[in-house]
């Protein structure tokens, strides 16, 4: 008979097994897959003894940390952290005519075929309703799920280099999970993180760092994945990709830049 969903696994109730897993987890001896599994078990709340055992090992070995020499971080590390965690700023309205003009410019890129009708409508609504700044929109992407249902609109402003997210419909996730935005490079096709997307908000805006702006300029498409809280630890998205969308450079901004 198959194991009933949500019933704790017997093996993880054994004190010997739990302590072995905990010690090897803290010593970094488990494979990536096993580490993910351990975190998932801890998040489930069904294995408090495992969480407790890991905590005990962390505390037991913590005196060793005292002996580790300090290493001053690079100056840009703090700037990057600030940039990733910046707060939403108020933005001002802008003439709707010029926004529509930018929207029409998208058509010149023959982009309509790449997105669903629903996404086109979402994008039009975004462009019409988006609170904009004095600088022009430069890049925009409508991220859709596998059913071509729009989930999120991402846009950047060319001069101020601000990223604006209009969140349409993202699913509920556990407290220990987060949404992370990724950008795919046209040059090397690698995915790089643009940081976490705040949960329970319908709009988000933040300043991009120089490095992040270069990623946008070289972008092919964006994706949103579900990660552990705090974002992917390995610099790559998990297998749980929620949505994806082509990143389009707007000609109106191109002309002004």
């Amino acid at each position: 008979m198959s194991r009933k969903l949500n019933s704790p696994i017997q093996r993880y109730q054994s004190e010997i097994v739990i302590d072995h897993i905990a010690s090897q987890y803290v010593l970094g001896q488990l494979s990536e897959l096993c580490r993910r599994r351990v975190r998932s078990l801890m998040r489930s709340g069904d294995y408090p003894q495992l969480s407790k055992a890991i905590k005990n090992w962390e505390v037991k070995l913590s005196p060793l940390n005292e002996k580790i020499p300090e290493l001053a971080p690079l100056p840009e590390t703090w700037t990057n952290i600030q940039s990733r965690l910046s707060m939403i700023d108020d933005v001002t309205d802008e003439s709707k005519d010029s926004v529509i003009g930018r929207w029409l410019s998208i058509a010149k890129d023959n982009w309509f075929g790449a997105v669903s009708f629903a996404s086109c409508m979402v994008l039009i609504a975004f462009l019409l309703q988006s609170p904009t700044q004095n600088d022009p929109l430069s890049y925009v992407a409508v991220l859709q799920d596998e059913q071509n249902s729009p989930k999120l609109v991402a846009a950047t402003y060319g001069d101020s280099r601000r990223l604006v997210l209009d969140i349409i419909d993202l699913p509920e996730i556990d407290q220990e999970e987060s949404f992370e935005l990724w950008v795919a490079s046209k040059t090397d096709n690698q995915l790089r993180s643009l940081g976490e997307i705040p949960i329970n908000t319908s709009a988000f805006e933040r300043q991009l760092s120089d490095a992040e702006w270069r990623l946008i300029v070289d972008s092919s498409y964006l994706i949103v994945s579900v990660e552990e809280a705090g974002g992917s630890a390995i610099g790559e998205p998990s297998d749980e990709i929620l949505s994806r969308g082509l990143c389009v450079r707007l000609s109106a901004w191109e002309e002004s830049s």
Partner: protein
Amino acid sequence: MNADESQYLRQLLSRCALKDQQAFAELYQKVAGKLNGVAYLILHNVESANEVLQEGFIQIWNNAGEYRSDAYEPMTWMTAIVRYRAYDRIKYEKRRIEGAAIKSMLQDVDQIENCRPSAIQMCEINQELNHCLSILDEYQHEAILLAYYFGFSREELSGHFERPVNTVKSWLRRGAERLKACLGN
């Protein structure tokens, strides 16, 4: 770290939980060097260590509300966050740590710190751990330190000691069991 410093970090974490950015900046100034040192020892690459530090601090900011001062010292909690992120990152690094460098680094970290009057309690814990590590077999002792400080996998340890992987697994398992028995629950 003495009791006053720990208390100060607790207060900063409490303020971070309330999204106090000034407290977050102070926390970074206070502990980033140490946490970067932890990441660097494991990754042996300055840029990668800084990336891990960056992601670790974002996690600290986001999860500050989950920090339980009755369960952890603040540094233990923050170090664990950075350590696990560094472990996760190892497989993407092409680390080349030579045998001589390992010996030298192990000697550096294996020195017992002198007790400061302000940190007597921590010193006692240190000395207890040092005592328990000292009663392990030489290989068990060294394998545990290499794994913890440098994130060495069983395969890397096997190469370093020129012993089969299963032997290394056994050292780590038995070493951990003996440590636990010595340190108590």
